[in-house]
């Protein structure tokens, strides 16, 4: 109520205090609001896959399996089951151990809890609840390409 301040009702002290409070609140709540909206409406990430040259049919002869690692560090395994080339994730669908290819039995075996998958990745024995995750494989001019997730 200082008349010298040009007759206004608000003193300089009050004005500055209120201004600081308002700026602070708007900045804080504004940031929180923007974060909140972006959290509630996340942009749908489209997974992109690229065909990566992994090996060729001269190396991957029938019955042979070969491991590979994708760009994110996840392990996969390529199997040539009598000319039929397939690629699976090495991660067992039960509790995440790594499966091994057993060439004689033509099965994937998870040693942690005695889980078995056939050459098509189907869970056939033991605790695994679902088949192994599969990658798309393309064979072109004897070269084997696996579709891996782009990062």
């Amino acid at each position, binding site marked *: 109520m200082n008349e010298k301040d040009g007759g206004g*009702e608000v003193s300089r002290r009050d004005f500055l205090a209120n201004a600081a409070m308002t700026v602070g609140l708007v900045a804080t709540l504004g940031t929180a609001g923007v*974060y*909140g909206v*972006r*959290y*509630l409406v*996340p*942009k749908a*990430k489209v997974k992109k896959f690229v065909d990566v040259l992994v090996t060729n049919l001269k190396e991957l002869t029938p019955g042979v399996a070969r491991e590979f690692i994708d760009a994110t560090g996840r392990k996969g395994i390529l199997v040539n089951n009598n000319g039929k080339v397939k690629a699976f994730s090495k991660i067992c669908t039960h509790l995440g151990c790594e499966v091994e290819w057993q060439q004689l039995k033509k099965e994937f075996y998870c040693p942690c809890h005695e889980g078995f998958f056939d050459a098509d990745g189907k869970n056939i024995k033991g605790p695994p609840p679902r088949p192994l995750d599969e990658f798309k494989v393309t064979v072109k001019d004897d070269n084997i390409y696996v579709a891996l997730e782009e990062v």
Partner: protein
Amino acid sequence: MEDVKKDEGWIDKTLPVDWDKVKEEAVGEILPHHMKLWWYCLGGVPAIMFIILVITGMMLAFHYVPHPDMAYESVVKISTQIPYGWWLRSIHRWSAEIMIVTVSLHAIRVFATGAYRHPRELCWMTGAILLLLTFGLGFTGYSLVYTQMSYWAMTIGTGIAAKTPIIGSFLSRFMLGGEAIGDATLNRFFILHAAILPSITFLMVFVHIVLIRLHGVTEHLVGIQREVIKGLSRGDE
């Protein structure tokens, strides 16, 4: 403000509330000097934390899935994939920690200064219920993440409940939704954490605050003496 009657606009007509009086009620209460000392303000901190927890909790519930197969995965997804999910989850988690610590300190302060005395018994009782509700919310929230730690916390928590005389086995079965931890347990903990306990807490906080405002805060000599020494006293003590 001067005594000039303001022009009544549309808002004043449709919403006939005396805002000056509301402001006076909300922030104009004259408080004794000892309230300037920070440990007398520990009751307000958990109240603010509770508001923050309700808001962030609602946000988290948008992406959380209360199913044993999906719970941990959805929490990881919130923390790593959803934009600013880590931010909201951290705020929720740290607000919870701060709420538990400050509620406990508040209870100790009220006890140590004897502020629970007549006529404020009801304040103390609702406060005691709020303390238990806070612990209950912390326990159920911790279990929702569904890590190994959550699992064993559930096991121990329900095990303790089972040892209650007479109603123990009923309590344990009520919490577990069966004889052991399973699909039903996580659902129950989610409902308790996200709906039942917060609703009761909200009501209790309301009653607690109304009672405080009706009684006014306790007068103490502790703070006053200190302020007198500093020469900051109101001068009428």
